[in-house]
């Protein structure tokens, strides 16, 4: 390399570096960390990136007069990989906030990073209620749903209908255990009893053995405290072995994508709780139509949640006039989120976004107008009834 070229290279590099420094301050960069290729890819993967981008576009693409940047990465559902990406993002790539975040194990690892670095985590896909209780932090915003809302929605309603005896088929990892514990508490508090439970390893294909055990338990309801393909396979086995003739099935965490994966003849009639359904009203239909045009599929509650959380975040940045996490979070908590997703909503001091949940029933194939027409909305559950009350030690707005 000649001297002339060396000087030129150095000059260009210098200009680029100073340009990067100049735009860092006050420039909003959002990272979406989700499951791009694994089991939960349909629930919060590429779709969560699309939804976040839609929020950015609808916001105008700019905040504080600077373009909003979006990057994304595959968490591969591995906590170690996810936390490494998160660390790189916040430490050397100037990412302000991390969204997406599906699977509670991954989210737990990522929030450890973001809590320390004082970056906001917009959790839209994970279920654990721990993020606003025992692992609460002033930098966590838990959107969409959690295990308590699911249990209060589905379990409480069914116990109230006189289904007192429950049997659990539980996924044998943290999420399944949490869902079972929370649901059992709801059952007992409402005068029901848990007559048995069985822990099935994650990724079990054949549930017939567990279905036989459930049948022998004499329960009124068999609750599926699992997710994704596990739920679908368990439900198939339950129907095949005639369990549904004498007992009810409750799917405790079912995303719309899972419902579409189920045989409508098998799943029809099952009740479940969701944070969002695309066909609820004109507003949800309009947004979902736009989402489907971009993504090819109807949105899951995690997708809608990703949009809503991003929008609320950007609004707060605009109002606060800075991207400083502490100031923005304070602003987020003083304004009530209000959009097609966050209805009658409140963003609490503990980082829990409380909003109306829906108790829905899966339609039988004969009742469906088309392949997306999957739920009948039975009841709107007010957020205050669905979610856990705020713990005093987790109230960061005091």
């Amino acid at each position, binding site marked *: 390399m000649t001297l002339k070229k060396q000087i030129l290279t150095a000059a260009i590099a210098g200009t680029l570096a100073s340009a990067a420094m100049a735009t860092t301050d006050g420039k909003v960069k959002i990272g979406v960390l989700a499951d791009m290729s694994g*089991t939960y890819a349909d629930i919060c993967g590429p779709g969560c990136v699309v939804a976040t981008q839609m929020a950015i576009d609808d916001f105008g693409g700019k905040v504080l007069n600077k373009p909003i940047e979006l990057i994304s990465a595959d968490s591969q559902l591995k906590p170690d990989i996810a936390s490494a990406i998160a660390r790189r993002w916040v430490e050397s790539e100037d990412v302000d906030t991390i969204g997406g975040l599906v699977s509670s194990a991954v989210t737990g690892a990522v929030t450890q990073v973001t809590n320390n670095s004082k970056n906001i985590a917009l959790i839209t896909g994970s279920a654990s209620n721990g993020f606003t209780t025992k692992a609460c932090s002033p930098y966590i915003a838990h959107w969409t749903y959690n295990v308590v809302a699911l249990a209060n929605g589905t379990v409480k309603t069914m116990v109230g209908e006189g289904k007192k005896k429950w049997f659990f088929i539980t996924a044998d990892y943290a999420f399944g255990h949490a869902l079972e514990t929370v649901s059992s508490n709801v059952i007992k508090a409402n005068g029901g009893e848990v007559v048995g439970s*069985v822990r099935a390893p994650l990724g079990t294909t054949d549930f017939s*053995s567990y279905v036989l055990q459930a*049948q022998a338990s004499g329960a009124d309801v068999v609750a599926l405290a699992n997710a994704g*393909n596990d739920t679908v396979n368990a439900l198939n086995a339950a129907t095949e072995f005639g369990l549904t003739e004498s007992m009810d099935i409750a799917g405790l965490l079912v995303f719309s994508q899972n419902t579409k994966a189920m045989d409508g003849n098998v799943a029809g009639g099952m009740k479940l709780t969701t944070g969002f359904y695309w066909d609820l009203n004109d507003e949800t239909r309009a947004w979902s139509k736009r989402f489907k045009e971009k993504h090819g599929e109807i949105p899951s509650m995690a997708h809608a949640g990703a949009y809503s959380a991003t929008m609320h975040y950007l609004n707060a940045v605009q109002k606060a006039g800075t991207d400083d996490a502490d100031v923005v979070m304070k602003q987020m908590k003083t304004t009530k989120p209000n959009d097609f997703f966050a209805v009658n909503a409140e963003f609490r001091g503990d980082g829990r976004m409380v909003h109306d949940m829906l108790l829905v029933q899966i339609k039988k194939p004969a009742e469906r107008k088309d392949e997306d027409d999957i739920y009948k909305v039975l009841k709107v559950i007010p957020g205050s009834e669905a979610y856990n009350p705020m713990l005093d030690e987790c109230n960061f707005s005091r």
Partner: protein
Amino acid sequence: MSGLLDINFFALSGQLLVGLINGSFYALLSLGLAIIFGLLRIINFAQGALYMVGAFAALLGLKYLSLSYWQALIFVPIMVGIFGMLIQVFLIRPIANQDHLYSLLLTFGLALMLQGIFTHLFGSSGLSYPTPEALKGGTRLPFMYLPNYRAWIIAVSVVVCGLTWWAIEKTKLGAYLRAGTENPQLLQAFGVNVPLIITLTFGFGVALAGLAGVLAAPVYSVSPDMGSNILIVVFAIVVIGGMGSIGGAIITGLAMGVIEGLTKYFYPQASSTVIFVVMVIVLMIKPSGLFGKEA
């Protein structure tokens, strides 16, 4: 006390039967692997992915070509078999003289690619395949409700496994096959087209995976990772039975189904590991597997 024992006996009978059902399914899957390894010395890691392809082929055939379940049962294994033969001719044959490790890595890569392509095309949530009308319903046995479709799986598995074992061990074609693996040069000297025999054998072994895929479609969620979930278990079964032993794979498949079923009853948390525990024990006592010939 006797009442309690009665209940346990009934529950146990149910679990045993469920175990046998799963075992017959395992037997069918491990049979294909055992043939490919025993006769061709190829460790085919793509077997699980091809099982998944079989299930998807049945589903897509139904959706786009109105291919009925019964037609799928015939056409899908043929299609998957042909696909397998193409893989053998174009990918595996060129590295046939290399170490076994190369075919293992190649087929493993192939499996990942197939799974990735299907995830991209159909998503990760899976799809459902309706149970054929004629096999809906079930029979109420004294101790459990036996779905007709599960009984059908046992029947198909027993017939297919029996026929395959008979064809390989007792017929002239089977003798050629076995001779071709013992001493290909000599067999070729007798005027037998050995490469063709190898390709056909691979195609048959893979077709069995396709058949298992069609059988599985109505009972399990048809999803891109259905193959990788089951492949490792099936491999363990082949190893326990003795790599390459046809009869060993069938008997071990059934036995492992039952052992897994009992574990699901007594200590479900261990059900995904119990087969591997058995594998470790068997390998320690008899490294060539229960029915394997000493190497």
